[in-house]
């Protein structure tokens, strides 16, 4: 009954008119961000963090706002997948496989409503899973010492690296770039600067928000300049929107199975929502077999990836809140938000700041209901917003990024650094070097080094201490397996190509 009491506390925080208002704003903004091609959950949340910060919201309000944006973006990603055949974010790629064919058959409205319901089911079940699992995991996390934490961070980089790129060396390199950048600045124990090259601006280190906004948002502008914003016009017509009860009932088991698959995928540190939607789609495809008609616009092919994707979004919050290790790019950005707000995620968060955790969980539940209501009857409004042309949208996003970063520090140096990160992001993404490990490296580098240094101090420099407990050894094995396994499973895990007209 602990959970109910905690949940009551959470709703007590989340149901005030102001937080409710923030949740609705966040859901609306998030859906738009998710729907617009070129703006996914990670860069959407990243651009909004500095602005939230300068607005002076308290921790709970800021968290409610940003998690509603996060969930909203997960819902919104499906709109452009179905109507434009462009995934609004990476996890929505799988939705294009059946969503776009269904829309071309003149059932765009049905596809949108069905995917909205599937998103709701996935996100709702994942939030319930989060409620049940997170407190237990938080208790286990008390057993973690520096050796375990070091292994856990390693696991996050390894599993993320295994999934994010087709070339392990490139994802490991990306992680090193991030970790290397995190080392820049004044060392906390000696008080002396490290690796700054004598540049005074670097004594504070590189702010992760600068890197995130640069790598995600500014890099996107270069991609649009390269392509001249082609391919972002709506190709299918949206007629009257009705609720396809028959399809919803026919896919109920698909939704439940996909939610479970997605949630588990989301919990794995570093794996995230892309893996969730991918596994959910593939499971359903193999269950349905040849005559299931996956890829031709069947309802199950839409329900599975959407339920999986949104369940993974909830699952990814579990390691982020209990261990401080994010499960995906967007949760990494949310972790950045928590750190900006001076909240340290980890097992102590559940005992010391229960109002933050349970307020967050309650607001996730509220956001979910708001999103369902918003996304089914009001879907036409979002479709209209999709027709904002790229030549207004991208300059706008750039200017918002500049102002956001400028309002943090007021320094030209951070702005130049952001442009530099944007350029770097363009080249790296062009060459299939994933950028999420860079972000994760910058965010977690300091903690990872602290864990290593504490382990070394405790053991008086004995390297074997890092493998001394069963948990640590298990994490090391999982990390190595997570890094190596994708090399052999490459053919099996190959992502399906997008459908072309």
């Amino acid at each position, binding site marked *: 009954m602990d959970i109910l009491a905690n949940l009551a506390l959470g709703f007590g925080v989340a149901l005030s008119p102001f937080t409710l208002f923030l949740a609705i704003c966040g859901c609306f903004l998030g859906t738009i961000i998710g729907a617009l091609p070129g703006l996914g959950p990670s860069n959407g949340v990243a651009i909004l963090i500095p602005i939230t910060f300068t607005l002076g919201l308290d921790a709970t309000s800021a968290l409610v706002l940003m998690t509603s944006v996060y969930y909203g973006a997960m819902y919104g990603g499906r709109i452009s997948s179905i109507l434009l055949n462009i995934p609004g974010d990476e996890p929505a790629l799988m939705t294009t496989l059946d969503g776009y064919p269904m829309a071309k058959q003149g059932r765009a409205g049905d596809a949108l409503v069905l995917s909205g319901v599937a998103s709701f089911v996935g996100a709702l079940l994942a939030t319930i899973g989060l409620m049940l699992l997170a407190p237990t995991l938080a208790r286990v996390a008390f057993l973690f010492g520096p050796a375990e934490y070091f292994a856990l961070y390693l696991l996050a980089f390894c599993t993320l690296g295994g999934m994010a790129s087709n070339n392990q060396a490139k994802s490991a*390199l990306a992680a090193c*770039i991030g970790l290397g950048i995190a*080392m820049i600045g004044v060392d906390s*124990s000696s008080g*002396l600067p490290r690796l700054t090259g004598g540049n005074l601006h670097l004594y504070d280190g590189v702010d992760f928000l600068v890197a995130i906004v640069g790598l995600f948002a500014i890099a996107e502008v270069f991609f649009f300049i390269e392509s001249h914003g082609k391919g972002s016009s709506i190709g299918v017509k949206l007629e009257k929107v009705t609720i396809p009860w028959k399809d919803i009932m026919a896919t109920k088991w698909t939704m439940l199975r996909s939610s479970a698959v997605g949630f588990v995928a989301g919990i794995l540190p570093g794996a995230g929502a892309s893996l969730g939607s991918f596994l959910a789609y593939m499971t359903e495809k193999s269950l349905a077999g040849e005559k299931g008609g996956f890829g031709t616009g069947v309802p199950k092919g839409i329900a599975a990836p959407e339920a999986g994707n949104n369940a993974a979004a909830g699952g990814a919050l579990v390691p982020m809140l209990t261990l401080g290790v994010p499960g995906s790019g967007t949760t990494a950005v949310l972790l950045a938000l928590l750190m900006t707000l001076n909240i340290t995620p980890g097992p102590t968060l559940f005992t010391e700041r229960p109002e933050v955790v349970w307020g967050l969980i309650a607001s996730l539940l509220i956001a979910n209901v708001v999103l369902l209501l918003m996304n089914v009857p009001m879907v036409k409004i979002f479709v209209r917003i999709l027709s904002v042309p*790229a030549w207004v949208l991208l300059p706008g996003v*750039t200017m918002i990024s500049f102002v956001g970063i400028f309002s943090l520090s007021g320094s030209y140096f951070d*702005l130049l650094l952001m442009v530099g990160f944007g350029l770097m992001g363009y080249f790296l993404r*062009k*060459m299939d070097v994933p950028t999420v490990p860079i972000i994760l490296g910058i965010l977690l580098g300091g903690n990872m080094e602290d864990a290593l240094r504490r382990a070394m101090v405790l053991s008086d420099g004995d390297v074997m201490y890092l493998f001394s407990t069963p948990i640590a050894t298990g994490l090391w094995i999982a990390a190595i397996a997570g890094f190596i396994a994708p090399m052999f499973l490459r053919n099996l895990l190959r992502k399906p190509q997008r459908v072309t007209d």
Partner: protein
Amino acid sequence: MASDRILGLITLITAVAYLAAATQIETNFFSGEFLPKLFPLMIGTVAAICSLILVFKPDPDPEWPARGSWIAMGVAVLVLALYAVLLTPLGFIVPTIFAAGILSYQISPRPGPAVLSGIGLSLGLFVLFKYALGLGNIVAWRTPTAAKLWDAISILIPFVGH
């Protein structure tokens, strides 16, 4: 092939420079002799190994854009860099009109809509930031002295600025 090899070489040189810098990290009594260097050295080593793998086992080249797009992107970088340094001495509105307008023109090369989106975004975002969100450190416009302008622009010139 060539792209990955070049990337590998660049990261290899960076990694070696990083390792060299890591051995030079200053330490004192509180930090111990070796601990501040340990993790940077580990990162540099892993990065160097990954770079070598890229040099010897490169992936196929990506599709690089045509020459026109390179020029457009170079201009965009220059515009963004100038925007970054001029935001303080010139205030928000004027630099934003130019920066947003030029970016818009580069995504879709039509002058009319580009000018309109520059002006619209500049004024619209200013009202949004200043009055709706209440961000304090944004100033509408400033008239700078020549010396201040030169100060700002010289930041971008290597070895001249500070």
